[in-house]
């Protein structure tokens, strides 16, 4: 007689865990099944090199929904966010751009580059705040389906239309632009300093296979602004002990609420009877039954690997196959013997405690994209560097450091060769690029971990290595995510739900999909 639960959650990433925590708190008997030995999915801390704790994939936090932190009381479960102060952009001409949270300081720095931009910068911040005020509610909302005549959906649409109408003309103009324009074009309207535009536009391309001049990237820019604009607490930061600590805190909350969590329990198959999900079979052959199955892994794994597609409507399968992943980023984690020394701002200063952005010019960013478009990783990529060990000594041995480099672009499919063969060339390209700004880097590397989209797929289980479980492109957002008509966490199979980043509102350590899915699941369970 196989064990039976109210709900099985496939995948112990942060969304799966959030989903589990909310269901458990509602008194459901919940089981989380994680394939790996460690929880967190892409939000995981691992000691790849003895003594050095890498936030292997996701490395900063900001978007984690406040209601989740509140509801699950995460600080009590060990969540501690340490501030990440500012962004430092070294420039090839020996100059640099260094923005910090200290408004006056940043202003002086900007004036150094352009008085006009210094003025515009404040206004820009205000405008983005406005935009976020408008868009935020969408993140906490189950998307309506504009193609259905269901009154609740129509009411939501009217609500959105009314909200849009109520905006000031200026805001309407900005919002429309943010929803449609390219990050670079959008910023061109505000600023003249190339390096400033390049660095800001970077948040418009993260996790997408788009360039800073591709329409649609302005929205992703906004998506990443959500975190930045709120109070200090939710400004971008590290979590003490690495991003894995966030997952552990959520797991803790879930366990406390009564959820059962099993690691090294890979799901082989979702079992069905009469068109309803009835449970799962593990790769070990063990069978587990549940009233509902909630999958936090991406649609490709859920519907094409863990299920027999023939059990699903053809049109749905077609759309699932069509859903775009296109991993575009890689990760290089370094164990360092000392701190990197930047030519343009030597010595170990505060500038190393923030994000270090390799984005010297908009053209540099766009060319990095061009190279990837044709199936080659960028030889001079955009790199977002952080050194968490400066803020959180617990992640590295005394005096030593951990350096995390997020790299774009690295296409999932290479035109020449394959990733296992070229992984280290990629790593070298990244290190060479940084070394052009910090020449001492090569001599202080103790060990390195290079993650290509291929590795992210293999190790973390993200299809094509897309860190957001599917591109954040306009046609894959809101009521179109992941599949038009199925953006409400339900699937064509009764009792089977989606709760991962492939559902609205999408990627980042936000937890919103897990929470919203739980709300919908509980609605359905209550209805029965």
């Amino acid at each position, binding site marked *: 007689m196989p064990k039976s639960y109210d709900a099985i959650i496939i995948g112990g990433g942060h969304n799966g865990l959030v989903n589990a925590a909310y269901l458990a708190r509602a008194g459901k008997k919940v089981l989380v099944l994680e394939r790996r030995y460690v929880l967190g999915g892409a939000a995981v801390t691992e000691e790849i090199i003895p003594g050095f704790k890498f936030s292997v994939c996701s490395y900063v936090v900001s978007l984690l929904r406040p209601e989740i932190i509140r509801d699950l009381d995460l600080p009590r479960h060990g969540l501690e966010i340490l501030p990440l102060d500012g962004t430092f952009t070294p420039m090839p001409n020996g100059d640099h751009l260094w923005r910090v949270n200290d408004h006056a300081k940043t202003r002086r720095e900007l004036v150094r580059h352009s008085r006009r931009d210094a003025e515009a910068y404040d206004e820009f911040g205000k405008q983005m705040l406005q935009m976020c005020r408008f868009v935020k509610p969408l993140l906490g909302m189950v998307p309506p389906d504009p193609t259905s005549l269901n009154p609740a959906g129509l009411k939501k649409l009217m609500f959105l239309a009314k909200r849009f109408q109520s905006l000031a003309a200026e805001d309407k103009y900005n919002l429309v*632009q943010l929803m449609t324009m390219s990050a670079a074009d959008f910023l061109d309207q505000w600023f003249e300093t190339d390096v400033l535009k390049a660095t800001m536009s970077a948040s418009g391309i993260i996790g997408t296979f788009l360039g800073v001049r*591709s*329409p649609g990237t302005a929205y992703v820019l906004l998506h990443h602004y959500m975190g930045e604009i709120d109070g200090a607490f939710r400004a971008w930061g590290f979590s003490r002990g690495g991003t894995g600590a966030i997952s552990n805190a959520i797991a803790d909350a879930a366990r406390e609420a009564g959820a059962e969590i099993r690691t090294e329990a890979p799901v082989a198959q979702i079992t069905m009877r009469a068109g309803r999900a009835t449970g799962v079979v593990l790769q070990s052959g063990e069978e587990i039954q549940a009233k509902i199955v909630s999958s936090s892994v991406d649609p490709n794994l859920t519907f094409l690997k863990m299920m027999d597609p023939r059990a699903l409507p053809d049109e749905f399968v077609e759309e699932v196959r069509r859903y775009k992943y296109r991993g575009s980023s890689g990760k290089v984690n370094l164990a360092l013997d000392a701190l990197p020394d930047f030519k343009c701002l030597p010595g170990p200063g505060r500038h190393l405690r923030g994000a270090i952005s390799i984005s010297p010019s908009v*053209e540099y960013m766009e060319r990095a994209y061009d190279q990837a478009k044709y199936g080659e990783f960028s030889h001079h990529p955009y790199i977002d560097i952080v050194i968490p060990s400066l803020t959180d000594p617990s992640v590295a041995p005394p005096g030593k450091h951990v350096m995390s480099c997020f790299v774009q672009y690295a296409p999932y499919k290479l035109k020449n060769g394959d990733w296992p063969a070229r992984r280290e060339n990629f790593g070298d390209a990244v290190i060479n690029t940084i070394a052009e700004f910090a020449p001492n880097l090569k001599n202080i590397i103790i060990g390195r971990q290079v993650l290509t989209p291929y590795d992210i797929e293999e190790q973390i289980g993200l299809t094509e290595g897309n860190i957001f479980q599917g591109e954040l492109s*306009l046609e894959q957002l809101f009521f179109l995510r992941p599949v038009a008509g199925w953006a409400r966490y339900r699937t064509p199979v009764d009792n089977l739900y989606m709760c991962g980043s492939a559902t609205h509102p999408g990627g980042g350590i936000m937890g919103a999909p897990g929470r919203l899915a739980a709300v919908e699941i509980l609605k359905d369970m209550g209805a029965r």
Partner: protein
Amino acid sequence: MGSHKVVIIGAGHNGLVAAFYLARAGFKPLVLEARPVVGGAATTEEFHPEFRASVLDGVSGPIAPAIAKDMQLERHGAQWLDPKCRVFAPSPDGRALILHSSTYRTLSRIAAFSRNDSSKYLELANILAGAQKFISGLLTMPPPEIDRPTSADIWNLLGAGRAFRKLGKRNMQRLLRWGPMAVADFVAEFFETELLRAVIAARGIFGAAAGPWSAGTTALLLLRVAAGGLPDGGPIYVRGGMGALSGAMAAAAKQAGAEIRTSAEVARILIKDGAVTGVALKSGEEISATAVVSAADPKRTFLKLIEPVHLAPSFLGQMQHYRCQGTVARILFALDGLPAFTALKNERDENAALTGRIHIGPEIDYLERAFDDSKYGNFSRAPFLEATIPSLLDPSLAPNGKHVMSVHMQYAPYKINACHPARPEERREPARASGERCEGPAVSSAASPSNWPSQRDALADAVIKTLAEYAPDFPSKIIAARVITPLDLEETYGLTGGHISHGELALDQLFTMRPLIGWARYSTPIRGLFLCGPGTHPGAGLTAASALNASRQIIKSLRK
């Protein structure tokens, strides 16, 4: 009512169409054209003794059928010529993809490449035919007022909504998904043949500062489809060239009661207390009017013809940000005879094939790379070309046995660099992060329209070289060539930024956002001043659909 004095600025297609409808409604519009001829960029010019062609031509059309009917253009001398083919697309390996006017033959042609694609083509054609009603519904309605939708708006939207629902849930969802998509993804969803993908995708980048991988280009494809109803639009030929069509329009407008003055360039729109009072000509002459309708592009209208003091700073700021930099050059060739395309050597009737759009751009990547060059201020070394040989159907355009070829070339950015960089992949070592790019100075600083005179010949060479790859004897056939750069389009034809569509066709500048959100209904912040050019919805191509919508709105408000 009726006898308002209405002045229309510009006698291009949109100006003439607006003039016709206003005249027919009882107003006596006076059309003022800066150039000695009517037609704007749609004129037939003798660019070489005895060789005549249009600067903008049928690859940009077609004219909205309703207009042709209302204006009885055929009675006024416009004679449409039907090409036997819509598209002829040679591939480097010497194969030819030919899309005939007959869908049946087209399908068999495609089947020669892929049976699967042939059936997919039919599927797509059917979906688009279904969508056409909905889309053209959107194109022929004035964009709704966002703040205070009028009852008419509600009706229009409901109408559009009904047409939308008629598509069925699946196609509704498809359209919603397609709109913002990159056209490269769109064609990949249907076809496996690279050449066919490129031919269809080209409709989504035509005239735009975008490549097939740019998001939103599918929306542009759908816009063009709405005009033609087919995934691939054929060229439009008028006997005597586009100028003849412009002539017919002028005749129709005159007969309806409009007055047209050429060589009468408007220097200023006169405004008093926030309302137009007339216009001042370059000659100094002043003409008073209670309404001024500008067929000139929005930037010229608001930033050149109006004193800034009359406009709110925020409006001016937004107008300055209105993107209006062309990416198109036109080249007119006088040919000693027809070039022999390698891909047509086994073709029974090769002349028939050449009556279609000659599409040069065999792969999606080819088109994207062509776009890449323009992002950094260079014209495409291997450009995307749409060529037509109108003299095949209309011998009057060239001496006996000789021909004219008119070429639409992308990409030729308005702001062009002074030097010829190699592409990154052509360089021995990849570009360095330290900025040591062979490009030299960054685009922003170096690229300028003033470099065009020095680039003109290089551009012609690139086009000739490209065509020669498909028709080796092409260079030997050239008697003369006239290159029209974006700078020429601006200086000679008054198109700001040399943009043939009076402003970038991008998601943020379409429908209720064209030209600006809040001002998409042909009226302007100045009382009595209206827009009727392609800088207003729907705006795509040489269709004069903007003027059709505009004149409806203008007539309404003038009668108030």
